[in-house]
């Protein structure tokens, strides 16, 4: 909106890819019969005691290192609240001493977004509100499944460095991509293994101070994230422009209505009364362990974007889509087989969105060379490429089987001469016409020549021949 800036900070919860829960040996799995993966700890039964899952700690450290955080000595804390998704009336989380603090994440365009902390906590049970069209404020009763209770989570708190819906979506995509690459989470938003809470505020362009923020919950897709931010920013701007003040609130995104609803105001905010969890001792990962975990990290999306961009000679923004599609290794192999770098980029972005199928890097490399040497036209190249993806093989042979043999230029010139003499009036208008006329006639001649050569001529070369003849 004109004259206004939207400021966004995201809190992302990701379920960690362990076999069992954070504090007990019940299974961490999605989609089973409700309440089939529970034990005394997940149900918060009296007398049960939590024992920390080593794998959850390792994955949390992986996340911290991948986000350039400091990994530190950390302590668990009880976050107290009364709600049936957490039968023991507190969630075990981390408060003043999170396992990871102060890192950053780089967006594809190179901007660094601050990460304030990334801490461990347990997930809660899943509540389904029944009646009132599933809407939280009209529900007639609720159903609870405790399979999710105690699943290990990493909560990644981003700095308010994002400036609009596109930024927010880029940040979540990048974070998701990192989490999946390092094996910390499956990152599936549709299954709730990646959830986003969004803090939105607005301020006038050029203002230094942050506006009053609202936190939006219940965002289940990248699309909802963008819509929720747009709605919320507009709502806040309207409030300020009408001379009122934005109230600090927690709001609920309603996907069906396309709007946010007030859940609670600052005064009604939960008073969590955090205190150190007496049932668990501190985690103090040794330097060796952290180092070992660091060494085991695979190349991150950011490194991969840069590597491919350097190999092609473009900016990392341009290689981000290829890395997202996991085709960067393939691209590098094709380049080392002497492919034309720019054609590699173009085809991987535009013509190989559905995957490479049976295409080999070597065949792909030869094809790009044939294309840049004008042995194949752009259209013919696409046809051969589709065949290579479908059934593999050598591009030369496939081109031949389609009859895509490159035309000798002298032969082509003879055809051009004949077409010109058969259409001398049109040729005169091509030579003498203004730019529009010339364009029109050029289309006319290229069309005829393509027809005459059954599409084997290269349109670009035909045009070159035509303009050379017009000038002589």
């Amino acid at each position, binding site marked *: 909106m004109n004259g206004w800036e939207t400021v966004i900070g995201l809190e992302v919860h990701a379920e960690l890819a362990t*076999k069992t829960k954070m504090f007990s040996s*019940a299974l961490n799995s999605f989609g089973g019969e409700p309440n089939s993966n529970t034990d005394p700890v997940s149900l918060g039964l009296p007398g049960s005691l939590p024992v920390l899952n080593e794998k959850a700690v390792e994955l949390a450290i992986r996340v911290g290192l991948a986000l350039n955080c400091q990994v530190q000595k950390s302590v668990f804390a009880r976050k107290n*609240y009364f709600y049936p998704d957490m039968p023991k009336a507190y969630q075990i989380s981390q408060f003043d001493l999170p396992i990871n603090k102060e890192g950053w994440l780089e967006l594809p365009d190179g901007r660094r977004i601050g990460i304030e902390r990334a801490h461990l906590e347990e997930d809660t049970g899943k509540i*389904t509100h029944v009646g009132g069209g599933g809407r939280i*404020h009209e529900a007639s009763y609720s159903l609870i499944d405790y399979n999710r209770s105690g699943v290990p989570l990493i909560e990644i708190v981003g700095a308010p460095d994002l400036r609009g819906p596109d930024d927010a979506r880029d940040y979540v995509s990048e974070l998701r991509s990192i989490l999946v690459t390092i094996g910390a989470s499956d990152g599936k938003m549709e299954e709730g293994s990646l959830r986003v809470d969004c803090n939105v505020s607005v301020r006038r362009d050029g203002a230094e101070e942050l506006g009053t923020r609202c936190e939006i919950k219940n965002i289940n897709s990248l699309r909802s994230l963008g819509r929720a931010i747009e709605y919320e920013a507009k709502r806040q701007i309207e409030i300020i422009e009408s001379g009122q003040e934005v109230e600090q609130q927690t709001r609920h995104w309603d996907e069906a209505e396309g709007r946010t609803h007030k859940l609670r105001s600052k005064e009604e905010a939960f008073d969590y009364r955090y205190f150190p969890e007496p049932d668990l001792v501190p985690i103090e990962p040794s330097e060796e362990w952290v180092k070992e975990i660091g060494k085991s990290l695979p190349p991150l999306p950011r490194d991969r974007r840069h590597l491919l961009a350097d190999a092609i000679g473009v900016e990392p923004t341009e290689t981000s889509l290829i890395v997202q599609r996991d085709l960067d290794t393939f691209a590098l192999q094709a380049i080392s087989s002497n492919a034309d770098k720019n054609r590699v980029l173009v085809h991987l972005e535009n013509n190989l969105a559905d995957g490479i199928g049976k295409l080999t890097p070597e065949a792909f490399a030869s094809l790009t060379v044939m294309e840049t040497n004008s042995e194949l036209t752009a259209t013919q190249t696409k046809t051969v490429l589709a065949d290579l993806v479908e059934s593999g093989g050598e591009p030369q042979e496939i081109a031949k089987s389609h009859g895509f043999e490159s035309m000798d230029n002298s032969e082509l010139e003879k055809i051009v001469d004949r077409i010109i003499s058969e259409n001398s009036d049109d040729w005169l208008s091509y030579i003498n016409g203004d730019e529009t006329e010339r364009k029109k006639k050029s289309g006319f001649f290229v069309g005829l020549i393509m027809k005459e050569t059954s599409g084997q001529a290269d349109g670009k070369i035909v045009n070159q021949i035509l303009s050379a003849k017009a000038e002589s």
Partner: protein
Amino acid sequence: MVQRISREEVAHVARLAQLALNEDELDAFTSQLAAILDHAADLEALNVDDVEPSTHPFPLKNVLRVDEPGEGFEVEEVLEVAPEVEESQFRVPPILGES
């Protein structure tokens, strides 16, 4: 002596825990909680300038468990403790607000 906790604070904490306390109970818990806080306040007599804050009485760290599945409950067993059951889930009254 100054009361270490007010009746209003006790009412607030009770509300957070969804406990309905009557007037007599509020009075009783206020004085009981105040007595506990007085007891804890004895620590203020000690000089702890050179003591590093601790979060746990035992000098232990990194007590970890291997990520291997163990035995859990059967669904039927779990649902026996539910007030009402629907589709293998706990059915509870409507809840306003979210966690």
